[in-house]
Structures are given as C-alpha cells and as structure tokens.
C-alpha cells in the first residue's frame, strides 16, 4: 500500500463530490483526507484526495473518477511527486502560556493567530507528521481543541488543465 494524492478537476456541478466519494465507498476504501475548492480556472473546481491504496487500486480509482461525466481530468501522484501542505489550528487555554510553551512556538515557528481572554489559537502548517508532532507536544498544555485540514497540493510534473481543455475537439 502506498500513499497517493489524487488531483481532480471538475465542473462546478451539484453532487459531483458525492459521485467521486461513492467510488471509494463502493470499494471499501477510506479517504485519508479531502480538500475541495475553486481552482485557478474560472468555474473549475479542484478536489485533492489523499488515499492509501495499492498501485492497482489507484489506477482503477482514477479511471473511475475520470469516467464521471462532469470530471474534466484526474491525476494521481506519489508523495515525492507533489508539494503539499496541511494547516493545523490548536486552541490553548491562557493559563498554559508559560516560557516552555514559548519555546515550543519558536521551535516550530508556529503563529498565534488569535488571542481571546480565555485562550489563544496557534496555527502551524506542514506535513501531517509535523502537525502531529506539535499536537503531541501541546497535549500536556491542556489543549482545548485541534483541527487539521486535508492536504493542498501542487504537482511537480508539468500538466495543464487549460491546455487539455483547449485541445478538446
């Protein structure tokens, strides 16, 4: 089993995400993380899916995704073929702010992005291993809440969805 990133470019069509996810559901494959948002191109959405499957499975999954009428193009990449980040937010009670926490914040180069009367929110961006490491360190600081995004990714190999659309006859 390998960890892959699937990039899907779709029309902005109601239900498209459901059509994509049922391909995984039907095969009993768990999606590790999923991010969806508008792409650089007007009206085209980009969905980033992280999944751990076999090389045979990833081929089939991506073919099935591409088969969806409103999917423009789908690609898959190994971890070393993409540049990716995940953002994590950590909510910590004010009482926990002491010099040892400051050291952690400096060490990780994390940011305090909100300060309320009772808590602060730290933001840290990196790979899952990094955000997870910080999470483990912060747990003893009476961590109140934690939230991590799916990955956003840019593929290293060159491809162009715009070019692909232009070549459509």
């Amino acid at each position, binding site marked *: 089993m390998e960890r892959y990133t699937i990039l899907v470019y779709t029309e902005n069509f*109601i*239900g498209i995400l459901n059509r994509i996810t049922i391909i995984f559901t039907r095969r009993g494959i768990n999606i590790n993380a999923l991010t969806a948002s508008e792409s650089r191109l007007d009206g085209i959405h980009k969905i980033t899916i992280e999944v751990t499957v076999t090389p045979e499975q990833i081929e089939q999954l991506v073919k099935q995704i591409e*088969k969806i009428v409103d999917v423009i193009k789908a690609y898959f990449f190994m971890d070393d073929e993409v540049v990716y980040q995940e953002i994590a937010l950590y909510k910590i009670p004010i009482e926990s702010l002491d010099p040892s926490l400051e050291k952690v914040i400096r060490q990780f180069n994390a940011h305090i992005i909100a300060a309320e009367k009772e808590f602060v929110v730290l933001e840290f961006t990196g790979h899952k291993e990094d955000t997870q490491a910080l999470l483990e360190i912060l747990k003893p600081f009476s961590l109140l809440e934690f939230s991590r995004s799916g990955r956003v990714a840019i593929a290293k190999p060159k491809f162009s969805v715009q070019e692909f659309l232009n070549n459509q006859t």
Partner: protein
Amino acid sequence: MVRGADIVVKSLIAENAAYIFGYPGGAIMPVYDALYDYSDQIKHVLTRHEQGAIHAAQGYARVSGEVGVVLATSGPGATNLITGLADAQIDSTPLVCITGQVAAHLLGSDAFQETDVVGLSMPGTKWNIQVRSVEEIAPAIAKAFHIAKTGRPGPVLVDITKNAQVEFGEFNYVPCQKIRSYRPYQPIKEQLIADAAALIDSAERPYLLFGQGVVLSHAEEELKDFLDKTGIPAACTLLGSGALPESHPNYVGKLGMHGNYAPNLLTNKCDVLIAVGMRFDDRVTGDLKRYAKQAKVIHLELDPAEIDKNVKCTVPVLGDCKKSLKLLTSAVKNNAHPEWMEKFRELEGQEREAVVANDLHGTHGGLHMGEVIHLINKFKEKDAVLVTDVGQHQMIAWRYFDYKTTRTQVTSGGLGTMGFALPAALGAQLHDYSKQVICVVGDGGIQMTIQELGTIMQTKAPVKVVLLNNNYLGMVRQWQQLFFDKRYSFTELENPDFIKIAEAYSFKARKVTEREDLEAAVAEMLVQEGPYFLEVVVEKEDNVFPMIATGCSVEEVRLS
C-alpha cells in the same frame, strides 16, 4: 411561453422518442397533463409498476439501439426505478428517466412523496441532475440524451421539481452535441493497431472473444470481416450473442459459467487472446488467477476504465471497436488456423454427446427446457428476438437459441434481475409489432413482474410468453444440490394456475405437460397473431451443464 411540463414533452419529441414507458403520480401530474395534448406525436405506455416501465424501456432500447424513455413520479415512483437503473448501468443500456419531484421550496422538508432521488440513483446512473426551474428543463434533457447514447451508453436520470413543471418559459430546443468535461470516444492509436496486428499475425493459436460492445458500436460487419480474413475462432459473451450469426464458420460458441465446453477450456490454451467489446466479467473468467495466463491479451474497448480492470492486457486498443476492428482488419495478414479450429470442434463433439443430445432430444422422463428451445428454433422467424429472465431457463435458452441476426438477445446480464423478461419483452415488441418476440421465463421470475401481463393486454403487443415451469427457483436449487448438500432451503414454489391468470389477461393460453404435445403447441404459438402464453411443465430437478463452479478456473469446466 409554454409550461415546463410542455417543455418536457416537446423536448422528448424533439429527441425523436417514439415511446414513453411510465406511471403517473402527484409530482409528475403536470407532465401527464401535457402528454394528453401530444398523444399523436409520442406514445405513452402505462405499465403496472414503475419497475415494469424501466425494464420495458430497456427492452425497447436493446432491440432498437435508441434511447428508452421512462416517466415516473417522486418518492416510491422513483425508488421503483432503481433496480432497472442498476440493470441498465451494468448492461450499458441507454435510458433517459424523468422523475417528478416535490416543489423546490419543499426540498429537504420530508414533504409527501419526497425522496432524495438524485442521491439514491447516483451509483446506478451514468449521470443525473435535479432541475428546479423551467429554463433548465430543455438543456438538462438535451444533455441527458447526449450522455445516455454516446460513448459507452447508460441510464441517465432527470429529476424535475413540480414548480418547474408548472412555470412558464420559452421552448427553444438545442440538442446537446458536446460537453467539455466528457470524452465519450478515445482516438485510436495507430501504433497499437500495428502492435496488435503483429501479435495476431505471429500467433499460432489466436482466439477472439466478443461482447455486447460489438452490438453497441454497430460493428457486426467489421467483426465478420476480421474473422473472415484471419480465420480466428470466435466465442461470445451472454450479451454478445447475435453479433455474429452462429452459422459463421469461425463461431465456436459461448463463454462463461454455463457457456460451451470448448470456448472455456481452450481459453487457457490460446497464445493470443483478442477481446472485443467485452469486460471480462467474473462469470466469463472464473478464477482470474488461472485465466489465460499463457496468452498475450489484446483488448479492443471503448471505456478506459475497463482496460486492465480484471485482466491485464498487452495491447490496449482504446476506441470504438467499429473503427479499431476495421483498422485491424486492414493491418493483419490473410490467415487460417484449421488445426487450432479443429480442437474446438473436437471438444464441441464431446459436449454434444455428453450434454446437448440429452438436453435437446429427451425421450423419457420430464421435459427438458432445451427441448422447448429446440422446437422454438424450428418454427421461429429468422430475426425473432429472444427475451429471457434470470436463472436456469435463461442459460438454457441462451445455449440453444439459434441467434441469426443482431439485437435478438435481450436479457439481464450483469445484474441478473429476476422479473426483467416480461416487461422487457413488451418493450422489445413495441419497437416493432411485426417482429417475433419470444419471452422465455421461469416460474420464479415471472411472478416478480407478472402484473405486466396487463400492460401487454392493453397494448395488444403480440408477445409470445413461454413459461418453463419446474416449480422451483431452479438455479438456486441447482446450487443447493451441488454445493449445499441438497438442502433445498426455500426454493420450492407452490404456484398459481398460470393458465387462468394468462386467460384473465386475455391471452390465448396453453399448458403442455407431455412430450408428444410440445411440438404442436410451439408451432401454434408461433403462428398466433396476438399475444400467446405457453406454459411448459418441465423436469423438476434438471441441471444446467456445462458449468464452471464459483472460484474454479475456465479449465475446470465440467460436463456433469
């Protein structure tokens, strides 16, 4: 300005839909009201259940190659279509289903007869959409037809809220020609044609398997030309039957669990396997780990997702097989494989002796299903359509029916939907009243959709229903006998008087229990002008052979 409901009907007419199979109800009533005004331009068939409507549309689509159209209401009307959608999806049958939906402002409020039809039908449709305003109706229907019939065909569903049906809008129908995200046809790579041709030319024991893709691509002539030039033996899948006349010298029989002996056995002896418009279903391949491992595989296929899905191929020729077969025929050398062909004929002889002779020419004991099909062949017209349900009778009818022309095979292949045959036969018959449509069905399956006898009565479709009655769910019983120590758990049926039922629906009906009466009864049925119901009481515990048991290899095909 016209009502949305009129736009629905006018759009269907613009797509040249000849028939709508449907069932009215609250949320689709405006469309039914509109239909009242267009009955001279489009015919509506009122079935007795929505499942009957969609199977009828499937039967219509399969024999005609046109898109079958279904109309149903929201909630239960729509959920009753699900079996047919799944069936059409797996058997690549083009359908456009239109369902009514509660008014847009009620969506999500658990309104009367509201159900999430788009969500429910998503896995069973090629594409679906909910339309909530009048101006979206015509573009959605145009897109639906384009998607249903292009590329690998499939069912499409358009869910239209009631408010959209009663709003007023302009009708300006623009057929859909292209969708930028949708690539139904792949360009054929010349290099792959050359690679495939080189493999074929150098092969000593090449073997071709063809499926429904040949029918869907209208590639019957191209297949025949390729076989004539190369002399390669060819076998078909369940849904590929009819694409090549069985009298063709290269035709060697049928593949799969209850196919013929030689085509299965020799799959593991060929050196090059050419698969055309087929998807290596598990019922065809048996154990994949022991399937054609010795062979180089050439796969001519329209759907990229089918390449390497079950069987890894050496040369994937993506594209419409009508074109790729033609290119391949020009690229290969004239050839013949008489010794290799002889191997098929030898094994065919063994099967004839061990199985076929007894199946077709019983002399004592109960009637065999095969005898009935054998007599149907004797009296049927050349282009008669065979519609079958699911089970033993389906496999027997498939094995012995003499397929002479294309689009004569209508059955539920991938999904195995009992209850399919009766409504599908109705749909097939409505496409052409002058054609012989023979519906072979078992006593289990017919009772799943028996109410459609009423639709046949009302449409006066001259369907010939042949009920092969063994008072068992025969295929399940056969498995219980072979794999579950004859523990016949809930497979025996206490059946009604089918003749009385058929007569109540105005069928001319006849029941045969004795061998000596069978020939006259079949002959009488096939000259009857109107609908006919023939019940044949067959041997209770007959089995279908040859057989490849689940998990076995094609090599382990058994004759008894």
